[in-house]
């Protein structure tokens, strides 16, 4: 008989399941202003702590505190707030459009608006963003036409990508927005390649990529970090830790073992771990990484610590796997409410202005919807079937010509 114990598998479980009281007591949250801001030239090994701490700027009273305060002027703050409000209004409208049968699918970014909006405002349109499906704020913060986004969602005759992709998989080269892939993680390494190309050509453009906490388990994530570190690619590698990969909590992707930001440490890359619901902290960290990339010092990993408030998609029901009110209890609050509170605290905003801005956003979305729905919703209108055969290659080969003729177009 053997004397060793029987082996057993540990399968991590989240702190709460449906019916439980949300419990975030395990989170170690640094106080706003508590984390120091190293010089952008700091060697990664000397800023190891930043991969484990949490950069925060806004305190509970809405004051901006500490070394990471980007000291934004009120106009920029108001622009950011309005873009976040507009993003949420857009999400709400399109979620409703799905419920009304106007499209097949939608994905909201509720609770994560600060991330894409702040980063979209910092990066230039000549830079290239390699987003996931939850960075609609990149387009919205840059003034991309809402009706064009809707046309894509409805796969209608004016869909910029001709009815070929799942709703929300936008593509907008002129706005620095790379075509979205449904295969997760693939674009992380492509962003590194794009950045390498800019460096090879002696250009001044940088790339940015986003990945979810779940997809950090994909091998492409690790390839991307290797290439980014080895070739010192001018790229910002964002990890949006929104706690959930559909129904799998972040512990399944390794989030209980260490922070996602700390994965950078093993690759010799600098990492910043940031309160993703704090517009100012996201701004400051991104600006730090941007300066580092822009000055040829290479890539930065930014973990954006946030919470996915809405379902993963319209095909998901989070009440089946997490406490119903967990999002409301998220200790880092709501990104929109926090900027609003900050602007009011510095005397640059009011509840009335907030209300007016929300109304205006709803009206703006409604007007875009009118424009888009006049062209048609899913199934009512679509590009010519002929386009189905186009752009497979630069020019059609005989197979495609024959098959197109078979369809009669």
């Amino acid at each position, binding site marked *: 008989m053997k004397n060793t114990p029987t082996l057993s598998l540990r399968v991590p479980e989240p702190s709460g399941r449906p019916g439980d009281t949300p419990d975030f007591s395990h989170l170690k949250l640094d106080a706003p202003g508590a984390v120091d801001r190293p010089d952008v030239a700091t060697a990664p090994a000397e800023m190891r702590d930043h991969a484990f701490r949490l950069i925060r700027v806004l305190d509970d009273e809405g004051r901006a505190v500490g070394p990471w305060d980007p000291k934004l002027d009120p106009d920029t703050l108001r622009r950011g707030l309005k873009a976040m409000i507009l993003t949420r209004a857009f999400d709400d409208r399109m979620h409703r459009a799905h419920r009304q049968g106007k499209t097949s699918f939608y994905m909201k970014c509720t609770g994560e608006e600060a991330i894409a909006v702040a980063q979209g405002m910092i990066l230039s349109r000549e830079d290239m963003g390699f987003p996931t499906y939850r960075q609609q704020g990149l387009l919205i913060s840059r003034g991309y036409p809402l009706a064009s986004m809707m046309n894509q969602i409805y796969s209608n005759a004016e869909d910029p990508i001709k009815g070929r992709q799942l709703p929300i998989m936008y*593509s907008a080269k002129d706005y620095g927005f790379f075509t979205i892939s449904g295969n997760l993680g*693939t674009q992380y390494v492509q962003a590194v390649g794009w950045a390498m190309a800019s460096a090879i050509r002696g250009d001044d453009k940088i790339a940015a990529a986003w990945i979810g906490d779940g997809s950090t388990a994909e091998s492409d994530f690790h390839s991307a970090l290797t290439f980014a570190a080895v070739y010192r690619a001018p790229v910002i590698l964002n990890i949006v830790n929104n706690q959930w990969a559909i129904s799998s909590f972040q512990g399944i992707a390794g989030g209980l073992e260490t922070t996602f930001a700390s994965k950078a440490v093993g690759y010799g890359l600098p990492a910043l771990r940031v309160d993703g619901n704090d517009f100012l902290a996201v701004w400051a960290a991104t600006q730090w990484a941007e300066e580092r990339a822009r000055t040829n010092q290479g890539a930065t990993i930014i973990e954006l610590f946030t919470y996915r408030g809405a379902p993963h998609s319209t095909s998901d029901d989070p009440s089946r796997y997490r406490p119903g009110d967990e999002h409301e209890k998220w200790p880092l609050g709501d990104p929109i409410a926090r900027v609003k509170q900050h602007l009011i605290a510095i005397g640059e905003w009011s509840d009335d202005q907030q209300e007016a801005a929300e109304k205006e956003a709803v009206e703006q979305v409604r007007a875009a919807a009118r424009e888009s729905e006049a062209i048609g919703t899913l199934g009512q209108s679509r590009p010519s079937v002929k386009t189905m055969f186009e752009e497979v290659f*630069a020019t059609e*080969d005989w197979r495609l010509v024959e098959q197109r003729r078979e369809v009669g177009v």
Partner: protein
Amino acid sequence: MSTASMNMIQALNSALDVKMSEDPTVVSYGEDAGYFGGVFRVTDHLQKKHGLNRSFDAPISESGIVGTAIGMAAYGLRPVVEIQFADYIYPAYDQIVSEAAKMRYRSGGQFTTPMVVRSPYGGGIFGGQTHSQSPESLFTHIAGLKVVIPSNPYDAKGLLTAAIEDDDPVIFFEPKRLYNGPFDGWHEKPVSPWKAQELAQVPTGKYIEPIGKARVMKEGSDVTILAYGTMVWVALAGAEHAGVDAEVIDLRTLVPLDIETIEASVKKTGRCVIVHEAPKTSGFGAELSALVQERCFYHLEAPVARVTGWDTPYPHAFEWEYFPGPQRVADALKAVMSGGR
């Protein structure tokens, strides 16, 4: 234009060198492909001549190599990446299939990926299962990819030049058994060098062999043999061994396929034998056979025959039983000449 006698390695190297000299957006990288010039020497001297930024070593990460190339291509470069053996292309499969192949389509033409994935492929070198496979049909099945396989130095240079200039992603398989000489499958006989062949006289400057055009290697009237890569030379040897007047067609490009040349030849000869190294089931021969049946059925005097690798993993000790040699080609030719097997 002056010509020089080149083997396939030198011809491919010359294509890269000429294109990199002419076009600053062409870059070349892969495992061991920089300083050392590639384990087969195809990228030799490129780093020295064109600089570290345009010819460099890459981490052993096929997905990383192809994924970064996609990003570079989307930026506006023309990357030519090397996957050291085609057997190692599978970790990059998702990047090639889901990403590079679909980029133009899914972005409505906003983003394109003009890039070449080069890879030595095929058997006959005692490479065992991880250095011998022929995975071309995994790529011919994918919308948005072009697949090119040259069989001689002249075509290798002309086709690689065309592939680099192509605006779509190209999978470029190099039959490594042919790198140093036209191997005809008689493994017990000495290999002849390329310099004895007319197709080894390669222009030193730039020229293009168009993608999508087959080469009739030998005209004939009895039967059409469709082959590509090493099997072109095996087919020629097999026809000679069988004493059959075969028309041997080197497809050169599997996608897009030169259907006109195939159709015209089979209608002329009335018989068709397809030869490839890859396993039989769902191999590219199945596609060729179906096309011939669809287009030439009433001209056929015998069922279409396939001579292929077996449906087993590539075996090390049984390489010559596995590798489709001239004897098996001759047997198939005789069978179709007598009306079928």
